[in-house]
């Protein structure tokens, strides 16, 4: 699933490691989500959205 996680994270000047620590997953999981190779659970989506200060719509809704 394509998403805006990477762009948003980079705008906030946050590293993958920092985000992974925030949401308590591995850096590999964050990398896979950003690449669209892993679909996170709703629980993790919410955690990522909170960590990045965005809504689920901003990050995951109909990304082109």
């Amino acid at each position, binding site marked *: 699933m394509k998403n805006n996680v990477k762009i948003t994270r*980079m705008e906030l000047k946050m590293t993958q490691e920092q985000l992974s620590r925030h949401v308590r997953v591995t*850096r*590999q*999981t964050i990398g*896979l989500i950003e690449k669209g190779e892993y679909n996170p659970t709703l629980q993790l989506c919410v955690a990522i959205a909170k960590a990045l200060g965005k809504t689920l719509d901003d990050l995951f809704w109909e990304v082109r």
Partner: protein
Amino acid sequence: MEKTWIRFLLPEDEYKRRNMLVFFAEAAILQLVVMIVLLVISRFEPFPIDSVLVLLWMLFGTIAYIWIRYILSGMEFAEIMTEKAYRRERKVIVIKSTSFLLIMCAGILSLYIFGMMSVPFIEGLMVTFIAALLLFLTNYISLKRSYQKNKELIG
């Protein structure tokens, strides 16, 4: 976290946890298929193999399947992203395997000295060497797969 009694076997990380559940499920289905095949065979002709041996092979096969899938998945070393971290971890694996080999050799030697070994000394050493080699190879393959996977995810 999934509501299951095997929670204690599952990792904290969501991606790893999901994959581990898949590996467990695959192993269980394979085990089921093997059991059905063995049951069908046993109905037509007297079974030529000892049933305990069959159970042991099935146990070994199930564990080996999950283990191999885990190693090849490249999930174990999820934080190894850079060449430097890869080299450092490789060194740790070499030290760990060598330490294991030396400690086991010392253990076997002391058992032999005190006459507590029922098998020949050289056999004990060979088993230890094979175990250390397996430990090194599995860790090394897992590290290499993890690094290859993680390299493409850096951003």
